[in-house]
């Protein structure tokens, strides 16, 4: 988990709303591409953005790892079971219609979709991000939902995590030895010890209840997050660059080049 503000780079300075629209379009583009050259251009462009956003290797590894665990592993497992069942039972019920290459292409497109989202979140400060979320949830506000209050809670959670995250981890690590049960107990877990630790965390954190309540009543939503559309030179350049890439992809897909 990363509570640090994104580094000051060209992508982080871009308007969060404009960047969101570009990110949404960019994440959908792979699903309209067919030619390998288009994917090559897209991957190059994303690589360029990765360097521009100064994404560290750890973020990349985590993104790849979670994608692998959540999407690729279950798929490969299912594909293997389906293939083995078909091979050994000869039952048509187990035949999986979609070819491996078609599915691999879909997995790759989904990865690009996933990666654009990671890049967007990595390069956008949290307060601007929540500000954009506030604007996006305007229809729900109109329906009478107290979105501003919910987002205030969200920002307070982030603040609480910043303040107490490392302290709680330290406390838990101190208790770790006592939390592992003896080797005879089920799964070597000390259920009662963990429960008591969690209760003591809860009781400790509830000591700040009055303070948090006071903060929530005093602080205005605008103090925690804000968003105002800003279109200046970097945004115009980003839109221009984005349109040029799209034009390039259109030319490739239409068969006019490569």
């Amino acid at each position, binding site marked *: *988990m990363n509570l640090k503000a994104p580094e000051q780079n060209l992508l982080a300075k871009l308007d969060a709303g404009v960047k969101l629209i570009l990110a949404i379009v960019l994440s959908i583009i792979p699903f309209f591409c067919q030619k390998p050259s288009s994917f090559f251009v897209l991957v190059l462009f994303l690589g360029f953005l990765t360097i521009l956003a100064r994404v560290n290797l750890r*973020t990349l590894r*985590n*993104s790849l790892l*979670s*994608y*692998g*665990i*959540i*999407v690729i*592993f*279950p*798929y490969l*497992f*299912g594909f293997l079971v*389906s293939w083995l069942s078909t091979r050994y039972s000869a039952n048509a019920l187990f035949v*999986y219609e*979609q070819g491996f290459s078609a*599915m691999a292409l879909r997995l790759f497109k*989904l990865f690009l979709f*996933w990666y654009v*989202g*990671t890049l*967007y*979140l990595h390069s956008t400060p949290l307060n601007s991000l929540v500000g954009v979320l506030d604007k996006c949830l305007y229809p729900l506000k109109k329906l009478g939902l107290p979105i501003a209050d*919910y987002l*205030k*809670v*969200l920002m*307070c*959670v*982030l603040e*609480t*995590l910043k303040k107490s*995250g490392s302290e*709680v*981890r330290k406390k*838990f*690590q101190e208790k770790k030895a006592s*939390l592992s049960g003896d080797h005879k107990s089920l*799964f*070597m*877990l000390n*259920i*009662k010890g963990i*429960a*008591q630790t*969690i*209760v003591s*965390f*809860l*009781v400790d*954190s*509830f000591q*700040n*209840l*009055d303070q*948090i*309540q006071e903060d*929530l009543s005093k602080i205005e939503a605008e103090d925690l997050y804000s968003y105002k559309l800003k279109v200046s030179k970097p945004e115009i350049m980003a839109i221009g660059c984005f349109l040029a890439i799209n034009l390039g992809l259109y030319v490739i897909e239409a068969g006019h080049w490569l």
Partner: protein
Amino acid sequence: MNKNRRYAIITILVSNAILISLLESLIPIPIPVPGVKLGLANIITLIAIAFLSLKDVLLIVIIRCVVVALLTRGVMMLAFSLSGGLLSALGMFLIYRSMSKYFSIKGISVIGAILHNTAQLTIASLILGGLVVLYYLPVLLLSAVVTGFITGSISEVAISELRKKDFFKEQVKAEDIDEP
């Protein structure tokens, strides 16, 4: 209860759910299967189910999922965690309120874990556009029984400890005294 007090309680519970889930790496998991987590955050959901309203429980789950997605930089993660979190919270709440005679906290937690994994895999199969990922469901369901039982056991002890202390009643009572 004053709205800010309610939101303060929700803030604390969400923060604790996220912090507790960060601590999962420190606890050995009995099933080394990719994609299987203990789901310690579920303990806070169960505590919320035992003491708060459905609206608050769902709000806790939604805010937790959004915060985790923002911090782990995973947009697609949001779809997975929201679907699993909301379905399991709703299912556990309904069972706790209407069938708690027949199900212990452990049982409710196991059902919650099963609903959570089923919802996540259904979303995965929708995204992938194929049912082949559902072959992984038996593995996840089996692990849900184990992890649900563990988190349920921890929740059962935690809830009874909090009940003994009259903890949530105390928070509301304090508010009543503070109120003009």
